[in-house]
Structures are given as C-alpha cells and as structure tokens.
C-alpha cells in the first residue's frame, strides 16, 4: 500500500512538473484552433495561420499604388505602362514578402518587374546604404534576370516596393503580399504621423533608423546604453573630453530634411549619454528620423513619442527660425 502511495505521489509530482513546464506554452494544447479539423490539428505541422483560399483579400493593382494589407493584387492593362511602382508598407515590427505569380510579360521586349528591398523616391533610398545590411545591387531583384530567385525573400524592414514596366496590352502578373513578424526590427518608416516607438539594438554593430515623413513634435522619453542606465563614473562607459558625441561609438541622432536618404539629412541633435526624462523638439521637416548608431558593445534603447505639427505650429516655427533648412524648434 505504501509503495503504491509512493508511486502515485511520484507520478503526481511528475504531472505537476509537466503542467508547470507547459505554463508558458499552454496555448499549444488549448483548443483554440478554429479550423474544422480540430482533432488532428495538434498532430499536424501545418501552420495554423495559413489563410483559407476564399478569405484572401484580392483587388486590382494600380500603376501607382500603395499597399498596406496582405493579399493578392493583379495588374493587367490594355495600354503600355512604362513607369509604374507599387509601394508596400507594414507595421514597424513586421517585414514584407512579395511573391510573383501568373507572370505574363515580355522580358525580351523590355518589360521588367523589379522588387526593391526598401523604398526609393527621387533617387534616395530608405534605408540608406549605411543602414542596410545588403549592398545596393543586391536590394534590387529583377524577375527577368535569369539568376533571379523565384522564391520570395522577405524584406529587411517594414517597407518594400516593386517597379514594373509593361509594353504589351494584355500582359499581367499577380503579386502576393504577406507580412511576417520581425523580432528585432531595425529600420522602419512610420505608417502614421502620430505614435510612439521603442528602438532596441541588442548588442549589434549596426545603425538603425526610424523615419517619420511628416513634420512632428518628437518627445524622447528615454535613452539608455547598456543593460542599465549608466552614470558618467562608470568605468565601462567611455569618458569624453570633447563636447557632443564625436568621440563615442554609440549615440542617438535626431535628423531632419527633405529627402528619404538618412545619410543626406542634417543632424538636429544627438544624445550619447543615457537619460530618462522628456526631451521635446518640434521638427518642421518633411522627414524626421531617429537614428541609433551602435558599436555592438551595449544594448541600446530609445523610446519616443511623436505627433503631427499643425499648420499654425509650422508657421510659428518658420517665423522663429533664421536658418533655411527645414526648421526646428
């Protein structure tokens, strides 16, 4: 009897242990699957989030288009379309993959469909060459190139675009747009003129930019280098003999300008000392960028809010500033 009790207690202990292991993953065995095949869904490796065919969003693709939803977009034309582009946009924490299907174009006749990893406007690219992991020529993938991969590759950030040129009437192609979670977002363009965001670079030697293509008031509430806020007496934190951030390898820049390329924007201010507390700035530029430069030695984090400046505030800023470059206050 006692042996049976001990055995039962051992099994009960094992059961409790297993349940506590599952605590963080209990959703896996919870029956929250909404597919019909509920019984077998636990044992299949098929991703539950595959959208059923009948529920995929579809609409025609325009010659100049911007798409922020997943779905299928088909371009057809009765006339030559020689300069077309479709912009894709997702949340800052997502990346985009673009698949080409049912492509019926005449590559030898000058047609092309080129997917670009980022955005290009007026010759300026986002992310800039300094901030993107790939060289520029690898960011363009032309469908008509013989060596071009047919399988889609997700973008490196939340924006991508497709350029296409169609000479012949009746040519067509379909773009399938999907979004994927990016666990470590680096470069991003804000979808809206208002919001808040936290940029984190987890000990990587890279530069990351968050671009807001609106004139905004920006409020940087926190900037930290390292695992905790440093004070200036920390031996691991570089001591600076010159003012500003010229000597440091880790800092945050606030940039402003009229273009998309962050390397061509002007530095409004920069921060290289950790701080907690609001720093307000009104930046009347077409493009406002918060950029982190990281050496990889620290975990860099910056948190900021931003809101759109109204016309009156913009006018006030313009009147108060002597310099001509897109006004800041």
């Amino acid at each position, binding site marked *: 009897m006692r042996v049976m009790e001990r*055995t*039962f207690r051992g*099994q*009960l202990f*094992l*059961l409790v242990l*297993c*349940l506590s292991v*599952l605590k963080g*993953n209990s959703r*896996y*065995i919870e029956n929250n699957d*909404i597919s019909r095949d509920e019984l077998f869904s*636990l044992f299949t*490796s098929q*991703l*539950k*989030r595959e*959208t*059923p065919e*009948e*529920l*995929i*969003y*579809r*609409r*025609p*693709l*325009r*010659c*100049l*288009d*911007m*798409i*922020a*939803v*997943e779905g299928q977009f088909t371009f*057809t*034309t009765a*006339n030559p*379309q*020689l*300069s077309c*582009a479709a*912009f894709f*946009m997702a949340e800052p924490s997502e990346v985009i993959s673009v698949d080409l299907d049912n492509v019926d174009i005449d590559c030898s006749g000058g047609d092309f469909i*080129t997917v*670009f990893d980022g955005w*290009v*406007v*007026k010759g*300026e690219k986002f992310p800039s060459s300094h901030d993107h992991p790939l060289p*520029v*020529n690898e960011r*363009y993938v032309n469908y008509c190139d013989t060596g071009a991969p047919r399988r889609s590759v997700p973008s490196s950030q939340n924006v991508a675009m497709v*350029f296409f*040129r169609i000479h012949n009437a009746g040519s067509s192609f379909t773009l399938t747009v999907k979004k994927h979670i990016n666990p470590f977002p680096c470069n991003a363009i804000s*979808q*809206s003129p208002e919001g808040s965001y936290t940029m984190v670079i987890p000990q990587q030697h890279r530069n990351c930019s968050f671009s807001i293509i609106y004139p905004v008031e920006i409020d940087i509430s926190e900037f930290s280098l390292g695992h905790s806020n440093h004070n200036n007496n920390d031996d691991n934190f570089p001591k600076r003999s010159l003012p500003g951030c010229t000597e440091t390898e880790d800092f945050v820049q606030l940039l402003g300008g009229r273009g998309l390329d962050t390397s061509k924007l002007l530095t409004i201010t920069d921060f290289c000392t950790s701080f907690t507390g609001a720093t307000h700035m009104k930046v009347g530029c*077409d493009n406002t960028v918060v950029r982190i430069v990281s050496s990889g030695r620290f975990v860099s984090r910056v948190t900021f809010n931003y809101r759109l400046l109204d016309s009156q505030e913009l006018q006030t800023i313009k009147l108060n500033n002597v310099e001509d470059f897109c006004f800041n206050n």
Partner: protein
Amino acid sequence: MKLNLFGTTVILLVAFLPRHECRAVDSRGGALRVLAPQTPNSQQQQQQQQQSAPILERLGEEYFVRLGNEDSNSLPSSSSSSSSSMYPGGAPATYNRALQLQLTRRLLQGKVGNIRALFSGFDDRGDESMERGRRSEDPAISLDLTFHLLRGMMEMSRAEQLAEQAKNNEILMERYGK
C-alpha cells in the same frame, strides 16, 4: 496507476512535440467594402477644389470614388491627360481634372519636385537613369514623387487596411463570437 502513467506520457509527448508559433488566425475577407461617405458628385468636387482644403482630404475623397470603380483598371482612351501618367488606373474624368487642378496649384506654389518627370511619362528619364545606373553600378530605378503625394498614398493605404481589418473582425465575430 496505469491510467496515471498513460496520462503522464500523453502530457509529456504533447509538451515536447515540435511546435510552431501559434497566433490568432487572421482571416481575410473578400471584396473590399467601402466604408467611406457617399461619393460626392462632380459639382461638389469642383467646388471643394476651389477652396483651400488640403490635398490630403481631396485625395481621400478621390480614393473612395475610385473604390466604387475598383474593377476599372484600364487607361482612358485619350492620352492627353498628363496626370494619367501617374494615376492611369482608369480614373473617372472628374478625378483626372481634380488631380490636374491640384498638381497645377502645387506647381504654381513651387512645391512639386521634379515636374518634368511627373509629366513626361518617365520613359526618357527611365532610360537616362538606367544609363547612369550602369555607369555607377547602381540600378538607380526611382520614381519622382513628392512627400505630399506619398503621404496621401499612405493615408489611403491605411484606410484600406483599417477597412479590411474591420471586415475581418466582423467575420470573426459572426463565426466565433457567439
């Protein structure tokens, strides 16, 4: 006892099976449902253009006008409209005229970027930029858009996304919210 052992084994198997990240299923609706106000008629549209309303609002209205004709993706027969080189998606005549007025106004204000590119149909510029690209080893395919137009397009895409999300939420509530 055997039942306990069996139950424990099942739980262990389930716990350590290879798992995939589970997230809520996002189902997608079918045709886009227009949630915008009613399409203004051409007279109202022209009156609004006489006012100094921001271009953004007018782009929004025109976007909803085009949603009503979403299956018309063919060019208009006349190529005289220079603005159709930017928006050749089969827009109605009022839309073309509205866009021309806006672009003209902005041109007079000196706010538009590269007019030549916008109105010349980019062909030559595309070739030029391609040649420049070859010389500098940079593909250099680009589009000349002002930030103002880019913002307008972002607003429209955001509205489309919200409309689609609302439709999906409604479907999910109908199916599983009862």
